[in-house]
């Protein structure tokens, strides 16, 4: 049964033929999608943001939206058509015949209600069970999804649970009535890798019990772990469908190939992840991409940057940034204090990249802030270019701030939404006031050119740009101060894989051209592995392992590193 394409779909849990969904009078966003999911099968629909995958999923529940137009030749749940159902008829089938699990249970479970009540809702709506019977079933469900001590958990609010616990509770609510079909829309996207692996295992277990699972995700590598079949969605259509190993191993469609190539794990340092030139536009196929990118040969910034003069040979081993025994604690809401960073030490060498990897709450962002001297360490010191940095006065530091650039995860949130791109970059350029600097417009254009953006973005505002363009502006802003050190805190975490690949390639380019030293912080081991020379693994505020990237990945010394490593989703090699 598993993975086999059903010829006769009479036994299918879900049959979709020629589904089209549009909003208002606009062009349809889902254009003729057909697929079948068999009982006990996991089909993954994979696509980037805007491809129409979530709209497809919601249409299957009759929840596409108030002004949506849904049409299909066939749309059947468990062999019964759901086309043209009334609201009331839909209500009777949702939760019973099909369950939905959304991303990030913090907002997908009502924050004002205990999780026990949320889980009991389906039972209240579709069964005649009394309060005691519902309570008993809720405990069974929590146990089934692997939440320890269910009696203690039922009364908790979603905000009191960890990300993984919440997601388990959300899954428990969706499978309360054992629906034959479970739709999971990005069920692991906001989770740490080890938790992600656990949730995937749970979904696999649910599939194994005979439930059909439709998995919606942007991440090919993640779904490949449990999906029997994969359907790649692009621009409202399924461009490629097939068994997982086959789709990942020999992708046929160009979009699939792009997505497979963009998986960063296992690709050695310096391998390009996107078949694109610097602007992110695909280059002509017959020209190798590294040859068609002449910018790092012609851009004179490397030679003209005054901070880069001097003997290159000796600088290779120069320590540009050093953390010595950094500690920092925070006060919890209940008044006790928590050590967020505990005795962290490392050195960053000129022109190299130190990847800091850890799960949420491991203290990696606090380390970034300590390095930027936006927080003062309780113990320890940060040195930059051999001089005291954290211990210096803010006045002294301000002179040097431009040499330590920062790139953040949420590029949009780090811009003033009312400022145009020109204003944002001019402001950053003015940080380092230089006499006789070329005219601002020329500098803006060359800065944009360096990050692969056209000057046409200058008058636009951050909201009018795509996620990838915004992060490019974020990099341009960091480069404007002519930094020698860049501190990147989850710079690609909110981007689609192919965009992520382009931005990683870009960071690689500018690092080589400008001789930058990078601190690259991420929860994503695959990304860190691809970009780093040295890797530090953080857990509970401590560095549990630090060493050359190849060594850490080939032979992790610490059990936690090994555990993290085992959880990393990998593409085919």
């Amino acid at each position, binding site marked *: 049964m598993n993975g086999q394409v059903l010829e006769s779909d009479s036994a299918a849990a879900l049959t979709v033929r020629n589904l089209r969904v549009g909003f208002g009078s606009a062009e349809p966003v889902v254009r003729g999608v057909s697929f079948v999911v068999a009982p006990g099968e996991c089909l993954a629909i994979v696509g980037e943001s805007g491809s129409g995958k979530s709209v497809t999923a919601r249409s299957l529940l009759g929840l596409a939206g108030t002004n949506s137009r849904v049409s299909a030749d066939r749309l059947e749940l468990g062999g019964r058509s759901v086309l043209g159902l009334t609201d009331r008829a839909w209500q009777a089938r949702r*939760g019973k015949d099909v369950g939905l699990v959304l991303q990030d249970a913090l907002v997908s479970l009502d924050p004002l209600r205990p999780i026990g009540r949320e889980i009991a809702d*389906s039972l209240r709506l579709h069964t005649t069970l009394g309060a005691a019977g519902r309570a008993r079933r809720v405990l069974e469900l929590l146990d089934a999804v692997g939440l320890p001590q269910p009696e203690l958990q039922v009364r908790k609010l979603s905000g009191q649970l960890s990300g993984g616990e919440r997601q388990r509770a959300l899954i428990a609510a969706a499978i309360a009535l054992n629906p034959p079909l479970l739709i999971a829309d990005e069920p692991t996207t906001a989770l740490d890798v080890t938790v992600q692996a656990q949730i995937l295992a749970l979904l696999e277990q649910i599939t194994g019990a005979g439930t059909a699972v439709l998995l919606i995700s942007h991440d090919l590598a993640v779904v490949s772990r449990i999906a029997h079949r994969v359907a790649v969605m692009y621009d409202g259509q399924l461009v490629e469908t097939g068994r997982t190993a086959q789709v990942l191993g020999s992708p046929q469609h160009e979009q699939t190939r792009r997505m497979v190539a963009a998986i960063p794990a296992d690709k050695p340092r310096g391998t390009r992840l996107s078949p694109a030139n610097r602007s992110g536009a695909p280059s002509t196929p017959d020209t190798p991409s590294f040859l068609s990118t002449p910018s790092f040969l012609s851009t004179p910034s490397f030679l003209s940057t005054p901070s880069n003069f001097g003997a290159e040979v000796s600088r290779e081993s120069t320590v540009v940034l050093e953390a010595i025994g950094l500690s920092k604690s925070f006060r919890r809401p209940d008044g006790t204090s928590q050590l967020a960073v505990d005795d962290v030490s490392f050195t960053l060498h000129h022109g190299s990249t130190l990847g800091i990897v850890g799960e949420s709450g491991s203290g990696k962002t606090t380390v970034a802030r300590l390095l930027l001297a936006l927080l003062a360490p309780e113990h320890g010191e940060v040195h930059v270019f051999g001089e005291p940095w954290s211990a210096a006065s803010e006045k002294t530091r301000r002179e040097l701030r431009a040499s330590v650039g920062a790139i953040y995860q949420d590029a949009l949130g780090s811009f003033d939404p009312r400022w145009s791109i020109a204003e944002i970059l001019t402001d950053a350029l003015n940080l380092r006031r230089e006499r006789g600097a070329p005219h601002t417009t020329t500098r803006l254009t060359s800065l944009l050119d360096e990050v692969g953006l056209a000057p046409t973005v200058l008058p636009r505002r951050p909201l009018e740009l795509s996620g990838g363009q915004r992060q490019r502006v974020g990099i341009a802003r960091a480069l404007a101060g002519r930094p020698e050190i860049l501190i990147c805190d989850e710079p690609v975490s909110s981007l689609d894989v192919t965009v992520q690949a382009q931005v990683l390639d870009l960071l690689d380019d500018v690092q080589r051209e400008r001789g930058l030293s990078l601190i690259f912080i991420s929860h994503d081991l695959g990304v860190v592995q691809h970009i780093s020379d040295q890797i530090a693994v953080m857990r509970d505020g401590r560095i549990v392992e630090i060493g050359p990237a190849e060594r850490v990945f080939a032979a992790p010394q610490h059990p936690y590193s090994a555990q993290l490593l085992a959880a990393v989703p990998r593409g085919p090699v």
Partner: protein
Amino acid sequence: MLARVLPRLAARLAGAVFVLWMVATITFFAVRLIPGDPAQAVLGGPGSQASPEALAAVSAEYGFDQPVIVQYFAQLGRLITGDLGRSYALNMDVGPLVLSQLGGTLLLAVLALVLAWLLALALATWSTRGGKVAARVGSSLEIVAAALPHFWLATSLIVVFSIGLGVLPPISTGDIAGLVLPVLTLAVPLAGFLGQIMRESLLAALESPFVLSARARGESERGVRWVHALRHASLPAISLSGWAFGSLISGAVVVETIFARPGLGRTLLNAVTLRDVPVVTGVVMIVAVAYILMTLLTDAASRLVDPRLRLT
């Protein structure tokens, strides 16, 4: 449990005392800005032609000849012992006078607050259910209602219901019928204001992923609203109700005067006109106490509706 509640209660109490002290201080100096001699006010105002000897005697008796700072501390001392003083104009103690007027105003304010909530809830739920036209009509109604000044609304209601239709009395009669127009006057603008806030948070809640999850479990439209969305929508409105209560008391000054209704508002207006400082101070202090109590109540209500607040 008690160990967690007590420090918070103590902090609340200290805060309340501080607020009352500030109110007393500001009132003391503010009434001093009203032009004229306070001794003259005691002797019946500028029209009474009091002799210089009489004025001097009154000044000495009430302490008006003392430095301001001495008068200020004397006043604070009296307030701490609960002595609100004696009215200059009415020849009676301020405490009993203010308390006798308090009930009418409280009844007016509480009824107006309840009615405003009901109107706002009805308007918000109706305008978020019925599609685009209802949404537009609802938001227009809210804006118009919120913009209505009390004096204009009161007069218009009298013109329509008392003079035109003759169904309701134009002045307060002490029974229920006499309450309708004053309560409406206060409630309608507040309902517009609360309705705007409720509709916005209701829309946000209805768009949120947890509502989508609830719908995916088979929850009906009504269930989505009553079990999930309205609870979220009411939170900001509850927090604002403390402030709304304060604005209702100040609105009562206008409404009680127009409808010739006895109450704190009218007492305050008369006292200011007559420069009756003890009565002004007394009314302001009692309103401040009521306001503080109301804020405590809205806090308690917020904690009741939002269990997240009970965690810390």
